[in-house]
């Protein structure tokens, strides 16, 4: 394990184009119009967000569409301040699980709108159970980052 032999440095890049399909197209069209859509399972009545084509548990097609609240409660958060190759979001950032009001699952997004440079300061502000509100980007592209982040109310 001590002696190291030659290595080769190489990289793989592969191109993809993925279909959103009907349900998610509608969800992201909503994002472009600053609306967050969920839909309802006709069997267990849970409101899932993002909207789905089917309920993973009841295995039936989802039913009614609902525009859900843009405010919610912080369930869990992770202050991330390390970097790796190919990281899609620039650190530091806070990944957060948010229970949007009136929904039955947690929505994963970013928590922002506060100074993230000092972790100890962040820790004083960010608490599980706090209320958060979506902040929209001005340049919306029917993409998950049309919401810039959720900020403390």
């Amino acid at each position, binding site marked *: *394990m*001590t002696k190291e032999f030659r290595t080769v440095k190489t990289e793989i890049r592969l191109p993809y184009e993925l279909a959103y399909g009907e349900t998610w197209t509608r969800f992201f069209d909503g994002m472009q119009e600053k609306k967050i859509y969920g839909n309802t399972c006709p069997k267990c009545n849970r409101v*899932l967000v993002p909207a789905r084509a089917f309920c993973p548990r009841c295995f039936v097609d989802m039913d009614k569409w609902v525009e859900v609240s843009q405010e919610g409660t912080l369930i869990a958060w992770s202050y991330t301040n390390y970097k790796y*190759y190919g990281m899609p*979001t620039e650190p530091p*950032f806070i990944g*957060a*699980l948010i229970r949007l009001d009136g929904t039955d699952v947690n929505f*994963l997004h970013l928590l922002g709108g506060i100074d993230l440079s000092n972790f100890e300061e962040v820790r004083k502000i960010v608490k599980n159970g706090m209320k958060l509100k979506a902040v929209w980007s001005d340049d919306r592209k029917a993409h998950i980052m049309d919401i810039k982040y959720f900020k403390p109310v």
Partner: protein
Amino acid sequence: MGRPVAIIGVGQTYHGRRMDVSYPELVREAVMAVFKDTGLTPDDIDGVVSGTMPSMMEGIALTHFYFADAMQAVGKPIMKTETCGSTGVSIAQTAYYWVSSGAADLVLAVGHEKMNEGNSQATMTTVAEPFYQRYFISGAPGVFSMQSQMWTARYGIPEEKTRDAAAFISVTHHDDAFDNPYAHIKLKVSMEDVKNSRIITYPVRLLDVCPNSDGACAVIFASEKMVKKLKKKPAWVRGVGYRGEEYFFGDSDKVVWEAAIQAAQQAYDQAGIRNPRKELDVAEVYNPFTFQEMLFYECFGFCELGESPDLVLKGTFTRKGELPCDPSGGTLCTNPIGATGLIRVAEAALQVTGKAGAHQIPGAKLALAHAMGGVDQFNGIMILGSEL
């Protein structure tokens, strides 16, 4: 149910940063070790199961092709099982079902990973699709730190106590690894070292986290007929359980974590285990993060929900405790992911056959092996016993 199946031999590589060997050579090292352990030859083997993490990890796809020779699989039936981080236990389960079905008598299971050749966190980010989750899942640590926060918040466990208990786990596992010749990280650490190490994703710090390891593991599963014929000391498979839940991280409860609870329950039911803390002699829990290990203790019924930090600090799960967990040093000290679950199985087999050497738990007869995978999504369990 099915034909009885036993593990009759295991082989591991010296895990670590293995830039002294190519990837196929690493695989071969584990395979040669299991043949040495059992005295069997490749001719004896009826089938081979192989598995690893996704192709993005080392940049080679469908590695059963590349390793056909290293695994001595040429001319043999093959299966390729992959379930993300739980791959190692899923490989073991494929080998178990294969032998139990009657379609084979001796099956070689091989798990492998060479993480130092790729970029593990970048790979894990591709587990998330680019529509919703990829932007927020900060590799594995981000997911697990959110999970541990939800857990402590649910039961109102004081932050200091979980911090101490997690540090205690880190210290004891790092100590344990010194007695395991194959372990990757051999480092003497103190409670203070852990608590002052760099924050990765709060509350997870550097010494709460497993390393990136290169390593492979090979295990031979045998039918009852072959166990008798070969006169090998068997580690009988007494129970197998596996559960997975939704892809969307926010869809299911990760504290009262049904995928973990039900996977264990399925295996316990088969093994006839009612009180796991009393009946199990040792457990090899998949613990890439100290905090998460405690959550597993609770979900596997080793203690009540929310109770684990107290028991950890009392030493219940140390090598001299009531139910020793990860006496090998566990995933925290060695994590070649595609092999890791199979290493848990191999370590459990070594324990119940009395072959674990310096980290043997005296008199161990019944052991649990576990692996976890996906975005906190999958759990697999295998129970091994010295008696059928």
